[in-house]
């Protein structure tokens, strides 16, 4: 084994410093997108802010474990969801498993019934208010909401969501399916008081 000369060691340190700076800049460049997802994985802005700071502190400490060329946003959210679990998130109530009889078109049918003069589908959606969406999303049980937030708000693929949450892709699909139906039921209740 050849021994590192002071020159090669200095070069190595300089390269590492440059890579670290680039990594930190890239990670900070994604902070807005990470926050938009984080905000809806937890109940309050304060929790989301704490979680963001813990996530970035940990990411900057363990930057060497990120493989360049892979999805940095997914890597950051993997750290964030793990920290969220560490904070005792799982102690909260687990989702009920009562059957949901309503189909995928439930919300459309309810809104259309109560908007008979709507000219197009966009008008039907406009019956919903921004506040009703925020409150309906927060009412979706955690395990389902995590997947809905990652896919519908974070625009992650099923495979990325599976990796972030460390669950099989089939579980992503079933939770997404159920989570969206719960969300629609909540939205229908908010919008037209459907039971």
């Amino acid at each position, binding site marked *: 084994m050849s021994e590192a000369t002071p020159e090669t060691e200095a070069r190595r340190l300089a390269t590492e410093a440059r890579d670290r700076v680039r990594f*930190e800049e890239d990670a900070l460049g994604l902070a*807005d997108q990470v926050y*938009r997802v984080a905000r*809806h994985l937890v109940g309050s802005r304060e929790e989301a*802010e704490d979680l963001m700071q813990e996530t970035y502190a940990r990411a900057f400490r363990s930057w060497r474990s990120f493989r360049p060329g892979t999805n940095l946003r997914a890597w950051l959210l993997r750290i964030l969801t793990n920290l969220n679990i560490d904070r005792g998130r799982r102690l909260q109530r687990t989702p009920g498993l009562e059957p949901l009889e309503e189909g995928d078109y439930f919300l*459309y049918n309810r809104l259309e019934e109560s908007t008979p003069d709507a000219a197009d589908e966009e008008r039907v*959606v406009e019956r919903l208010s921004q506040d009703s969406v*925020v409150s309906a999303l927060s009412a979706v049980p955690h395990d389902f909401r995590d997947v809905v937030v990652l896919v519908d708000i974070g625009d992650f693929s099923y495979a990325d969501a599976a990796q972030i949450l460390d669950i099989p892709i089939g579980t992503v699909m079933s939770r997404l399916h159920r989570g969206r139906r719960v969300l629609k039921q909540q939205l229908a209740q908010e919008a037209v008081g459907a039971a």
Partner: protein
Amino acid sequence: MTSFADDPCAKCEELLQPFLDRELNEAERAQAEAHLSLCSYCRKRYRFEAHLRRFVRQAVVEEMTPELKVRLSELRTPLL
């Protein structure tokens, strides 16, 4: 599993969410598109689901405060 031959609208409903998620394979996507081009019942519901998806995404956007941005920047490793 429903098939397009048995009940095309039920099959379309089954594929609609993964279609919007861009998660269907080529053959399924082509089948869904072909059905949507012919069926106004499913097309209306497809348009609603697509609008709903955009509406939800926009409705829940909450931006970081400038203070948080500063705090995150301060976590960077100091340059020597």
